[in-house]
């Protein structure tokens, strides 16, 4: 995968673009439907999922992104991005929409408020080089995992990194650490 979009409506999209650049990929900032053309994959960054959900609608991006994802475009969602990919959102707003390409239920802000945000070394299945330095910011957890979803890492019994086909999702923020292994995993998949 070389030309990869980063949803750039709000949040930490720039940090994802920098990670892609460091791995030699071409990052494209996605703000309008036209920006989607020719993309081989899409990253949905951390930020506020309620804000991003609203801006996706206002920008006319929701349907075109949903179509591309339904066609099988690879996607990597982190934190709010994971919420946007999930099949079911718990403790969200009633009008909050998601793409539903990852068969999981996520619970927003499940680790608590910012005083409970944390860093931890997380063991990731199949990832060489030791634990991954994971940064959790008002992070969601996965409450339910459907058949066909592979859990790659867990914290306190809750899945925090999982994969279903070409969709990868993390409750934490690989873009806030200097560790590029998960971005690499996404590009190679």
């Amino acid at each position: 995968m070389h030309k990869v979009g980063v949803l750039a409506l709000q949040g930490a999209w720039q940090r994802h673009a920098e990670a892609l650049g460091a791995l030699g990929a071409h990052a494209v900032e996605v703000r309008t439907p036209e920006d989607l053309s020719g993309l081989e994959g899409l990253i949905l960054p951390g930020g506020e999922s309620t804000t991003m959900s609203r801006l996706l609608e206002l920008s006319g991006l929701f349907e075109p992104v949903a179509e591309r994802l339904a066609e099988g475009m690879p996607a990597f969602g982190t934190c709010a991005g994971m919420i946007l990919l999930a099949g079911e959102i718990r403790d969200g707003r009633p009008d909050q929409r998601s793409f539903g390409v990852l068969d999981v239920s996520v619970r927003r802000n499940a680790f608590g408020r910012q005083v409970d945000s944390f860093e931890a070394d997380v063991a990731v299945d199949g990832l060489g080089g030791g634990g991954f330095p994971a940064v959790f910011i008002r992070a969601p957890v996965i409450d339910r995992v459907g058949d066909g979803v592979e859990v790659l890492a867990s914290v306190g019994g809750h899945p925090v990194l999982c994969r279903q086909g070409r969709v990868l999702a993390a409750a934490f923020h690989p873009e806030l650490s200097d560790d590029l292994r998960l971005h690499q995993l996404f590009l190679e998949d």
Partner: protein
Amino acid sequence: MTDRNTGSSRVKRGLAEMLKGGVIMDVVDVEQAKIAEDAGAVAVMALERVPADIRRDGGVARMSDPAMIEAIQAAVTIPVMAKARIGHFAEAQVLESLQVDYIDESEVLTPADEAHHIDKWPFTVPFVCGATNLGEALRRISEGAAMIRSKGEAGTGNIVEAVRHLRSILGDIRRLTQADAAERYAWAKQLQAPIDLVAEVADTGALPVPLFCAGGIATPADASLVMQLGAEAVFVGSGIFKSSDPDAMARAVVEATAHFRDASIVAKVSRGLGEAMRGAEIQGLDTRMAERGW
């Protein structure tokens, strides 16, 4: 059991990273907080009076009633921030015990200490502080601030001071990157800032923490202006709920901030918004809030 490290610099600055490209709105009650969240705000600042009313009413402005902050925390799912007076570490301790998501050590409230800001390092909750220039920003970061906002002049609806402060901070960062090793010491002296932070800014060409803009943003075009100048997100205080149609203004500022480089979108959201807050000339002010802080 996984070891969890809370309150690290990366975790504190991390929440500011998540707010980038967004709008943080001042709200004084649950109803306003809901309007802000519905409009797409990334966070709300819970306070009893917006800066325009603090100016009008006079008197000492203090931390808000915990009951009011808790009511807003219960009403919205987005982060809730609250203000403590400059140097008033006891107010900050109270706000931390309420588990607010960010503490704004703010010049909008009446300062509690004329020489010292809060030592922010011992806290688990992150702090945002205002700055009018690069030296002030680096002093706040050296005390533990995890986000800087340019101060502007709160409660005026006048963008001129915000522009002055952003240009001062970002202009000096650009000039500093051109300095040679010896000149960095002179910069540190002139900025009254620690040499290690001065060197870091010279090497990276950016503050070590996110830089947001506050104080005087009253229209979608104001938000676009400061974002194009280099702010990474905006705080809107009086500008939303002192306008004639707060709901529409809130939505418009959110969209203009996300699409700040696209003038056609800024134009679209600016149509038929009603009146922006009335605003004030800087020369006519009794109190310059931006001058508070040392």
